Structure formats: structure tokens, C-alpha cells
């Protein structure tokens, strides 16, 4: 079984940037039309998952 990873549902994400504001590890960058996850920086702290107004971000 592969290690857990932060995943993004691009259909649900509205690019509001709230997750970027709560990320303390610079693991999320809001590019012009997509949220980019920098997996090498992500520590799976769950802050962005909690903050996301939709259910676009998940750790699975």
C-alpha cells in the first residue's frame, strides 16, 4: 500500500487560496488556474483539509 498523500479534486476546487494561507510548509501554491501541491514539502498536517470550504483536499 502506498504512503498517504494529499490529493486535490480539481473539479471541486474553486481556487480560493484558503489552503495556501494555512499551509506552514510552503507545500501549496495557487498557480493561475490550478492549485499546485508540492508533495516533497507536504507533511500531511491536515490544516488545509480542515480549512477547505469544499471537500477538494483529502489525505488518502
Amino acid at each position, binding site marked *: 500500500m502506498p504512503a498517504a498523500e494529499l490529493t486535490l479534486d480539481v473539479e471541486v476546487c*474553486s481556487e*480560493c487560496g484558503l489552503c495556501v494561507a494555512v*499551509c506552514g510548509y510552503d507545500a501549496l501554491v495557487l498557480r493561475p488556474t490550478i492549485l499546485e501541491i508540492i508533495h516533497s514539502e507536504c507533511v500531511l498536517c491536515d*490544516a488545509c483539509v480542515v480549512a477547505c*470550504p469544499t*471537500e477538494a483536499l483529502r489525505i488518502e
Partner: protein
Amino acid sequence: MDRRFDIVVIGAGPAGCLAALTAARAGCRTLLVEKHKTIGEPLCCAEGISFCGLNDNIPLDHSWIDADVERCYLRSPAGHELQFDHPDAGFVLSRRRFEQGMADLAVQAGCELATGTETVGLLNGSGERFHGVRLLDGQTTYDVGCQIIIAADGIESMVARWAGIDTTLPVEHLDSAAQFLFDGVPDLDPTRMEFYFDTQLAPGGYAWVFPKGNGIANVGIAVAPVVAQGRKAMPMLREFMRFRFGQRSPKPLKRTVGGIPEFCGRKFMLSRNVMVTGDAARLLDSITGAGIANALSSGRIAAETAVLYLQGGRGDLRVLKSYPERWMALRGREMLYFLWARQIFLRLTNADFDAMVAAMAQVYNGQTLTAIDPIDVIKRALRTRPSLLRLARHLVW
């Protein structure tokens, strides 16, 4: 270095557009950079602003406005209603026309506008200041020199972080919001803003209906994740829609989500020659979540200070310190009061909301008000609940 400017403004939202306009009108060589191809999109906002919040910062242009607000309606969990008239309360803007309009004015004043251009880094100079920004236009990276950088890149701001300010927000210090734009909203008063308080419906926040003309309205909800126990704003908005619309569900035109960071004081506003404005500096009202007026005033004051630095400051970075000082002198008292009041707001029960709305309704229902002091309103509401007054005294302001 490909080009040189006096001021580079990053982000063409309300803060960035007004900063660019102010700087360009003062004769500064100004570049306004926007990562999206279209100004005003994507929208993450309920678009409400008070008359003064707009007009104190930029002369009003009626083409920016979708609805004139003349009436406010509040509803408590048990159905107590408070409604009063307030002829100059404010507006519901079309953020897209508003920002495009300000950007057009800035360009007319000589500002250069680069849309579809992402800012990917700051250029480190002497150590005392940054000497420019690195931009990405499609596939091409290029450097632009400048003396002052104004960061107006919103809640997702990277510029502030690159400048050494840790703007990371603990989840306890924000609200998470969702909104639909609806056509054919039932029982819609085109001049009335509606607010709904209920700890089940909108824990730690409230739900709203803001008219946008022609039967169209922004219908949204803000919740505080710290008290929402894992419930998300978007599914809670669907619950509110069932409550507000019953069986008569209108047609959704657009979906919007967004975050409302809590005010953090002046600490994110300045680093070396980088001035941070609006949502990027977390300059939002902690009770209502309003941010446009603060974005405008911070963008304007940042640009005015930058002009002072460029034209008479002789390169003395201390001149820039008057930006956070002036902004705090203008808005600090109210913002800190709201931040304190939020600690009480998060602890309110439905019985508190019922008692407060019922007591306020006895005084204000059907009245016409000409001016509202938000601090006075909070004080009056607290006075109706002695238990809250005791709690309030325990919280340090």
C-alpha cells in the same frame, strides 16, 4: 534587468488596483501584475461594502454597483426578526466591473498592466531591500526592477512570505465560506441585506443574502472551522438554502468559495521595501468578514507612502513605516475591537442570539437610521445579556 519601474504592484484586486491608480496618478512609473488573464476573476467575495468604505477611498462610479442597500434584516435561530432602514448603508458591487474600472483608470493615468503574468519570486538586492520581481508570462521568465513592491496578492499571498513575513494562519484564526449566485431568489427585497444567525446553521459565522439586482443575489455562509466540528461550508450552505428557499429553489448561476482570515494587527504589513495590503496582510474585519474597504484603504495608503518615499524620502526605508502607522490610526481601533468581539461571538449560544435580536428589535425595528457605529452596536448587543458582559470583561482586549 529587462525593465525598470518605480513601483511594482502584485495582484489586481481592490487593493492592488487602487494602489496602482494612486501611484500612477502621482507620476510614478508603475507596473500592475495580475496572474489571471481576466481582472476580477475568480470571485471569492460577497461583494458588500459600506458607503464610506468605498467613497472615502475612491470617488464612487455608479457603473460599479449592482445594488444600493437601504435596509438590513437580521434573523435569530428562533425566528426573531430585526429590520431597519439605513438609506446610505452601502452597496453590493460587481467586483469584476469595479476592479476592471479601477484598472482602466490606472492605465489611463500611465500605469502599465500585465495580465496573465505570474510573479514567481523577488530579486534579492543589497540585503536591505529587494530590487525587483521575477515574472512568468506563459513560458517566458523575465526580471523587472523596482524600488518598491506592493503585495496585493490576496489570501494566498506568496510575496509576503518571500519577503520574510510568515503569514501562515492557524486554522483556529479563520472562517471558511461558500456562496452561490442565484437567479430568481424568492422573497428578495432588491435593497435589503439579509443576515441569519444560528449555531446549527452557521457555527461561528452567519449566512447572508445580498441582492445584486434583477432577482439575482449572492447567497452564502461563513463558518468557523474551530467550532464547526468538521462540517464544511459548502454542504452547510445547501442546508441553509433549504431553510431559506423551502421548495422554491432558484437557479444557481455560479459557485464561489473563499476564506476569511482573522485580523492579525500590523505585523504583516511591511518588510524592507515590500508593503503588504488587503487580504495578503490579513486586514479583514473579524466579525463581518468584510475586506474590500480595508483592501482599498491599505492599497491607497501604501501607494501614498511609496510616493512619499520615492519623491522626498531620499531612499530612507524608515519613511515606509508610516504605512502601517497611518493605516492603524485609521482602522486599528475598530479592527482590534472586532477581533476581541469575535472571541465572544464564537461562544454565543442560540439563546444568546435570540435574546440579542429580540432586544435590539424592540429598539430598532422599523426605524430609519442615518449612521451606525459598529462598536456601538456590539456594545448595545452585549448589554442585553449580562452573562456576556461578564464573559467580555474576562477577555483581554
